[in-house]
C-alpha cells in the first residue's frame, strides 16, 4: 500500500499545475459563469498561443541549464523586421513570415555563440540582448505601432474555421513538434544530457558546444515564430510588449516542472504552466478584479506553484541539504 501511496503522491505532485488549473477554473466559473463558456475557452487558447511559444523558447535554454531573457525583445525585433520588409519592399507575406523567423534565428545564433563559444553568462548576455533589441525597435519606430494590413500575414491570427479561431492550432502544432523533438530525437536527448551533466555529455561524445548553440538557436527560432503569431493576431507590431510577458515566459516552464538547473522538464508541463498563467489572467479579468490586483494575484499563484514544486524536489531528495 505504501508503494501505491507514494506513486499517487508523486502523480499528484507531478501534475499539480493541472490540478491548479481545474481548481481555479471552477472558482472563476462560480463567480462568473461566462468563464466556463466555449467563447472564453477560445479566448484563453488564443491568449495562450503567443505566450506558449515564448515559453517553449525559454524552455529550450532552461533544459541545457541556461536561460534566454531576450525572447520578448527578439519577438518585437523579428516582427518589426518582417513588417518592415512588407512595408518598404512590398515582399509577399510568405516571404515576410520567413524573414521574421530568420531574424529570430539570427538573434538566437548570436546568443548561442556568446554563451556556448565565448562562454558569456547567459542570464546577463541575453538580458542585454533583449534590452538592445527592444531599444533598437523603439528607436527605429519612434515607439509608433507598425500596422500590418496584409491579409495573408494576419490570416492565422484572425481567421476562424466554423466559429473556432485558427490561432490555437499553431499552439498545439508547436507543442507537438517540440514534444517529438525533445523526447524522441537524438538532438533533443543530447540537450537533456548536456543540461543534466555537461562534462559527462561531452565525455560520451556529444558535441556539447553545438548542442548549446542549437538550444539558443531553437529559442530564437521560436521567438521569431511568436513574433509572427503575435503580429498576425494584433494586425500590427506592438513595440511595447510588457516586461511582465517575459516574467511569465520564464515562470511558466518552472511552474510546469522544468528545472532551472537543466536536464529536467517535460513538454506537457510547459503547456500546463502556460495555460495556468493564461487562465489566471483571463479569469481575474472576467471577475472584474482591477488590473493591478491581477498582477499581484498572478505573482501569488506563481509563488504557490513554485512552493509545491520545491516540496516535490525536497520529498525526492530527502536528507540531502
Amino acid at each position, binding site marked *: 500500500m505504501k508503494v501505491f501511496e507514494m506513486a499517487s503522491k508523486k502523480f499528484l505532485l507531478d501534475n499539480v499545475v493541472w490540478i491548479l488549473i481545474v481548481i481555479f477554473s471552477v472558482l472563476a466559473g462560480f463567480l462568473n459563469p461566462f468563464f466556463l463558456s466555449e467563447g472564453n475557452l477560445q479566448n484563453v487558447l488564443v491568449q495562450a498561443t503567443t505566450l506558449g511559444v515564448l515559453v517553449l523558447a525559454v524552455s529550450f535554454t532552461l533544459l541545457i541549464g541556461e536561460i534566454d531573457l531576450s525572447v520578448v525583445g527578439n519577438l518585437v525585433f523579428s516582427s518589426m523586421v518582417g513588417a518592415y520588409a512588407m512595408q518598404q519592399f512590398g515582399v509577399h507575406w510568405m516571404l515576410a513570415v520567413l524573414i521574421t523567423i530568420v531574424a529570430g534565428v539570427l538573434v538566437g545564433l548570436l546568443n548561442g555563440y556568446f554563451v556556448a563559444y565565448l562562454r558569456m553568462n547567459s542570464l546577463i548576455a541575453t538580458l542585454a540582448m533583449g534590452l538592445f533589441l527592444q531599444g533598437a525597435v523603439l528607436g527605429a519606430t519612434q515607439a509608433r505601432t507598425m500596422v500590418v494590413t496584409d491579409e495573408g500575414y494576419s490570416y492565422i491570427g484572425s481567421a476562424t474555421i466554423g466559429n473556432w479561431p485558427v490561432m490555437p492550432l499553431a499552439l498545439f502544432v508547436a507543442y507537438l513538434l517540440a514534444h*517529438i523533438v525533445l523526447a*524522441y*530525437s*537524438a*538532438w533533443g*536527448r*543530447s540537450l*537533456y*544530457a548536456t*543540461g*543534466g*551533466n555537461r*562534462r*559527462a*555529455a*561531452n*565525455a*560520451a*561524445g*556529444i*558535441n556539447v558546444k553545438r548542442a548549446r548553440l542549437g538550444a539558443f538557436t531553437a529559442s530564437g527560432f521560436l521567438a521569431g515564430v511568436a513574433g509572427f503569431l503575435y503580429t498576425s493576431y494584433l494586425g500590427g507590431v506592438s513595440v511595447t510588449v510588457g516586461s511582465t510577458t517575459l516574467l511569465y515566459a520564464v515562470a511558466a516552464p518552472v511552474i510546469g516542472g522544468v*528545472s532551472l538547473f537543466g*536536464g*529536467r522538464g517535460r513538454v506537457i508541463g510547459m503547456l500546463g504552466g502556460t495555460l495556468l498563467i493564461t487562465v489566471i489572467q483571463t479569469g481575474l479579468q472576467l471577475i472584474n478584479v482591477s488590473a493591478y490586483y491581477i498582477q499581484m494575484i498572478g505573482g501569488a499563484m506563481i509563488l504557490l506553484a513554485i512552493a509545491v514544486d520545491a516540496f516535490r524536489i525536497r520529498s525526492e531528495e530527502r536528507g540531502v541539504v
Partner: protein
Amino acid sequence: MNVAEGTIVPDSHAPDSTDAVLTVDSVFKRFGPLAVLDGVSLSVSRGAIHGLLGKNGAGKSTLSNIIAGLLRLDGGIILLNGEDVSALPLTARKKRGLHLLSQHSEIFEDLSIGENLLLPDLPRRFGLTDWAALHRLAARQLESHGMPVDPRRRAGDLGASDRRRLAIIKAVAAEASLIILDEPTAGLAAAERMHLLEWVASLTQRGTSFIYISHHNDEVRQLCSEYTVLRDGKVTASGKAAALSADAMARVITGADVAEFHRSREDHPAAIEISGLTFPGGGPVDLTIGRGEIVGLVGLLGEGPQELMRALGGLLPVEAGAVLVDGRAARLGSPGQSLDSGIAYLTHDRIGEGLVGSMSVTENLNLGNWPRSLGWLVSGAGMNRRMREARGAMDIVMGSGSQEIGELSGGNQQKVLLGRLLERKPRLLLLDEPTVGVDVAAKEQIHRLIDDATKKGVSVLLLAQDPEEMQRLVDRVMIFSKGRIARTLRGAEITIDAIAEARTAR
C-alpha cells in the same frame, strides 16, 4: 571477535579498555545483500598510531566512515573515551574529539590558510571578524605544530603535502583525541612522504591518537605501533606492528589461498602506435600497444599518465604527434572524435564526468550513441535491447531500465559506463581507475570484463592507484616521470612492490 581462517593474533590478551581511546566492538554493516563489515572489533591505545590495512574493498573506508559517523552501523558498538557514540551524528563525534581526514582533504582553496585553520569559529570583535587576532592565533598554531607558513596566504597555493598538514593541524588544534587519516600520503613523492610521516609521529607526543589507513605496508611497519588487518569485512590479524615481518604482513593482507584470476600473458602484434604525442603536462610520448595487450601507466599525480589518457580520449588538447589505430590515423580533439577513431576513455570521476544523474539507466547506457530510427529519432526499442544485452552480459543488478542511474550501486553504475564504451566497439580502451568506489565482487567482474575485451582484440591502457590491481591485470608497465616514459617493467619485473615503489620514487 570474529576471526577468519589463516590469521595471526599475536597479542591474545584483550587490550585494557581504560587506556583505549577508541573501542570498536563487533560492528556489522550491510550494503544491500552484501555484508561489507562482518563483526569487526578493534581498539586504539592512547597516543598510538593504529595502522588499518587491507586490500581495496576490504572494508577500510566503510569502517572509518562508520567510526566517524558518516555511515550508520547495522550492529555493534563504538566507544570513544569510554562513551558509547554509536548513535551520535558526525558533528557530535567531532565535538568529542573524533576527526576523519579523507583522501581529498577538505580545504577552501580561495580562503586564507588562517581562515581554513580557524573556521567556523573565527575570532570576532563587535560581531565582525577580527583579522589581526585571526592571523596571530593561526600563526601561533602553525608555528607550534612545525609548519611555519604565513597564515595570510591563499590555501589553494599550498602543495599537496602542506594541504594535508593543514587539515591535520586543524584537527589537532580542535583538541582531537583521535584522528583517522585515510591514505594521507597518496600521490606524494618519497621525500615528502617521509617528512609527513615523521611529523605525524611527532604529534602523538601530545597525546593525540591516529588511525592510519594505507596501502603501503612499509609505512605502516615504520610508523604504527599497532595494527589491524581487514579482509572481506573481517579482521584477519591484529597486534603490535613491530612483531610482524614484511612477508607475514603481506600474507595476512592478501590471504594466501584466495582464488584470483590470472591473465595469460603472450606476445601481442602491434595495434596502437603513439608517436611523439605531446599534450599539456607531458610528452613527447612514444608507445606501441599490442592487440589485446594491457599496458599499465604509473606515475605521481600530475606526472603525465592521466594527462596522456585524457589527451588520447579527447579531453585534453593534443599539441603534437600522431596516433595510429590499426594503421589508420586517429583524429583526436574531442571525445566524440576519439570515440569515432576507436578510442574510448573510462573516467575516474563517475559522478562528475561519467553519468547524467537526471537520466535513466537505459539512457545513460546509450548516451551519445543512440540507436536511431528514421535517421534522427532515437529508437526506444533499440535502447531497451542494448540494456537487456548489457544487463545479461555484465550482470548489472538493477530494478528496471527506467529507474534513475543514481539508484544503482557504484559497481553497477561503473558497469553501465563500461557498457556504453564497449558498445562503441573501441580498439583502444583507456581505463582511469576502473574500479574506484566499487565493491569487491563488482571489482572482480569488471576485471573479467576487461580481460574478455582484450581477448576480442581490444588494447588497454590502465591507470590504477592500487598496485595490486595493476599487477594483476597488466602485461607491461610504463613508469612516468615529468611527463615522459622513464622506465618499463616487463614479465617478472612486474611485482606489487616494484609498482608501489615506482609510483612514489621520483
